[in-house]
């Protein structure tokens, strides 16, 4: 019988250990940011329970949530939390068996089950957070028409005065690493045949390269994304004013990955006009979807008349795909400009009317 090579079995054993590690560290972290919580507020999802990042955090989140009519987050009332330890335990056990016996099918089955469990877990997380975020008490104290409070599955989202960050915690990364190790083990232990044996050394050489590329791709992903703007806490890098309005705002990510944030499109434009080095990426707040950022290449800019917006140049950004008739209905007869137009205005100094040379 053709068994897995030793190095695959070692990797599989390692994967089993990483899965076991998820019993001791939180899988996921949901953090809430608001000016009144300089010390932070958040919760940790573990295999079998949900806890506050600090002991009273969960009660405090529930206390805040009662204003918007959300249900109390009660870990004992979430069935999946009773299932997850068994699933993780089972996965660890099967991986351990695969490592001990070297049976390839076992490893392949493990990978499939892991993928399935992961997908189911994320789906369940989504379903749960959807229910909490949408299923609000009819007599809620604060009702904002159209507003729901589902935290993002992954990433960052503004929910009233809070910005919610949802990211894998140590346990989540452990699980991901276990899966990658398992996949690597299976790939390195492909059924050997005459042809394969010849290429094995090549594969051995390629593995680290692939790993490095994977890591690089991961890093690339994280740094190319805009960092969420912490509304109400961050200050504009140009005018030093607090960034508060989620409909306006801009962000520049430099070549080195440094993030600059602005409270208006004009501040962003003036910054780029004055800067000699080209940025890696530029982002602006989507007026139609407050709190989300658009790359400038996919935005159209409108100079609005009437009450002041942003820094006084009355610039706002919408997605380039926004229907022109809808825009007309909302803003009247407007000229939609591109980022290049805005930048040209900034270079000419046309966006400095309010704050002048200050």
């Amino acid at each position, binding site marked *: 019988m053709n068994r897995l090579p030793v190095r695959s079995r070692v990797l599989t054993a390692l994967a089993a250990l990483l899965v076991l590690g998820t019993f001791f560290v939180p899988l996921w972290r949901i953090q809430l940011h608001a000016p009144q919580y300089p*010390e932070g507020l958040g919760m940790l999802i573990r295999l079998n329970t949900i806890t506050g990042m600090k*002991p*009273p955090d969960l*009660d*405090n989140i529930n*206390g805040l949530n009662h204003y918007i009519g959300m249900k109390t987050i009660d870990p004992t009332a979430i069935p999946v939390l009773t299932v997850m330890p068994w699933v993780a335990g089972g996965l660890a056990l099967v991986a351990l068996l695969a490592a001990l016996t070297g049976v390839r099918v076992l490893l392949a089955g493990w990978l499939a089950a892991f993928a399935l469990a992961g997908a189911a877990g994320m789906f369940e997380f989504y379903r749960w957070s959807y229910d909490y975020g949408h299923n609000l008490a009819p007599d809620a104290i604060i009702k904002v028409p159209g507003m729901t409070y589902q935290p993002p599955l992954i990433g960052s989202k503004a929910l009233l005065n809070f910005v919610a960050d949802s990211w894998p915690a140590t346990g989540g990364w452990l699980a991901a690493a276990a899966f990658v190790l398992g996949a690597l083990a299976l790939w390195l232990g492909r059924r050997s045949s005459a042809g394969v044996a010849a290429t094995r050394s090549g594969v051995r050489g390629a593995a680290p390269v692939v790993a490095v590329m994977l890591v690089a791709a991961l890093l690339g992903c994280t740094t190319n994304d805009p960092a969420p703007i912490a509304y109400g806490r961050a200050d504009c890098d140009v005018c030093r004013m607090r960034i508060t309005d989620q409909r306006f705002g801009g962000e520049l990510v430099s070549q080195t990955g440094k993030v600059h944030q602005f409270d208006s499109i004009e501040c962003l434009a003036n910054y780029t006009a004055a800067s000699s080095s080209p940025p890696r990426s530029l982002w602006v707040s989507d007026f139609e979807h407050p709190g989300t950022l658009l790359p400038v290449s996919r935005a159209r800019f409108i100079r609005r008349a009437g009450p002041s917006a942003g820094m006084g140049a009355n610039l706002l950004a919408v997605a380039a795909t926004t229907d022109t008739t809808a825009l007309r209905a909302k803003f009247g007869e407007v000229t939609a400009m591109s980022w290049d137009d805005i930048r040209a205005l900034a270079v000419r100094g046309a966006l400095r009317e309010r704050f002048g040379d200050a």
Partner: protein
Amino acid sequence: MQILKTRRFWLGAIVVAGGALTFACNRATVATGDLVGGDAASRVYVKPGEKDELYAFMSGGFSGQVSVYGLPSGRLLKVIPVFSQNPENGWGYNEESKPMLNTTFGFVPWDDTHHTELSQTDGVPDGRWLFINGNNTPRIARIDLTRFETDEIIQIPNAAGGHASPFSTPDGKYVVSATRFSVPIPNTDMPIADYKKAFKGTLSFITADVPGKLDIAFQILMPGYDYDLGHAGKGPSDGWFFFTSYNSEQANTKLETNASQNDKDYIAAVNWKRAEACIAEGKAKTSPAEYVHNYMDEKSRTAKSETKTSVKMLDPRDCVGVVYFLPTPKSPHGVDVDPTGEYIVAGGKLATVIPVHSFTKLKKAIEDKAFEKEIDGIPVLKYGSVMAGEVQKPGLGPLHTEFDGKGYAYTSMFISSEVVKWKLGTWEVVDRVPTYYSIGHLMIPGGDSKKPYGKYLVAMNKITKDRYLPTGPEMAQSAQLFDISGDRMKLLLDFPTIGEPHYAQAIPAALIKDKQVKYFKLAESTHPYITKAESDGGISRTGKQVHIKMIAIRSHFAPDNIEGVTLGDTVYFHVTNIEQDWDILHGFAVLGATTSELILNPGETKTMKWVPTKAGVYPFYCTDFCSALHQEMQGYLRVSAAGSNVVLSANISPKAQAQMAKATSGGAGK
């Protein structure tokens, strides 16, 4: 022409007057340099969001409290209630804190605080506690610096005017209290004219190193003088304590004249290690003395009061070598030991010099028995045999001295209203700055310890006059911050203070700021009437007493509709703030209550006692703005006529219903 001449005359007069004024000014401010340094603003500016470098704890004087300021900004951070009732947060009004103000004279709602003293380890402030004395009804309080709350108060028996207090030994084992007024001991009815015959002073040593256990270790019976200030020896002089005294004339009337006749009064040098030895040998008498010890029970956050009945009294005649008198010019106030422990500086407030004693010489004089005479078993050492030097012409009215750790001493001059900087060892004056006006004590952070922090000096002035916008006949007291990092003192800032800050101490913020309690853990509270969950609230009656257990959380009370109280009942509102979040406080007030509101820290239970006097419906509400719906945080209590048959009831909130349902189903499941 006539007009011109007149003008010329006036012009001349103005020039002459101006010249005289300039001359006078020059004389008055000789060698003061810049009054306000050019960069003063930037030295005291603490940007929004940034924090001060030091905490300064200032005695609240006749307010009876302690105020906490940030330095160098001079911003008021907190007023800590100590000896005086404080309606702002219910201190001394709510049932939990009332026992803290208990004394053998009953409930005393006020005192006069004088000196703050940070707890010490090895002669250096450690940031654990702050001690403060009450002068009028002699007491010492210990304030916990993780909560900025008064935790403990001990009354000093056989004493009147606890002024020379609460200075600490370098190891923190004792704090002391000496009597400003001599009185009959024990205090009994007798003619005041018997002062010389029968009035005595006492020096009390209070064990202070175990929280909750302040106790009078022993007292030393002293001649009937006025004891003023004190400081422990340190380094080579560790084991000794020094107290100033005045009125060695033993006048009992018109002291301003009659107690100012002797050329020298005394510093009492107490060998407290020797006192301990004598007590161990059984040389102290156990004498009856009633005094009260109050402390805050940590778990229930409720004060307890106990009365003690005796003290150990040591007569110097029974313990040779326990006290010596050091002759010191003219009614000395401060007695301050330099960081090395060698020099003992006295502030003879009517003297023309600042006398400095040497500890080395003191020991030698005792060895050589260089005694002038003996008073009540206390040898008086010869002035010349103990004197290290005198600072000549320092100014008028030297009061109090602190040290910068770089070989310099700074003495406050009340009468000439200035701070004088002089060099230890050479006794020469090197700098002086005016203060506005009439400085009492001064303070250098750590300036009375083994390791002064230096850098700043705070002058605490007795008179304010025109320094701030006028506010009627009474002005806020005035503190002034000086930079002492250079050769010359530089005035940086004036800031107003509460009460009259007799003395202050300051400590680097780093020693305190990171160990702050942010809320009290509900689960750990042992308060007998705590309500830990909404479903635990309710109402009960024992005879004429009605107890209401209630929670406060953003943004409601539960229960919030209460009926069945009748006239003649005494109502106790036990309100628990069940928040477990920093700085989320609630308040509680009832229409017509003849006491203060309650202010509730997170996790804390406080009780308001209320005797309704008229039938009707009484609203109650939250007084500490807690949340967006703070204005909705309210409820009603119904009071019916005596004998009414309205059923005693408290409504159940939806949340409490849910909690009860869950508890029931959980119970059924088990």
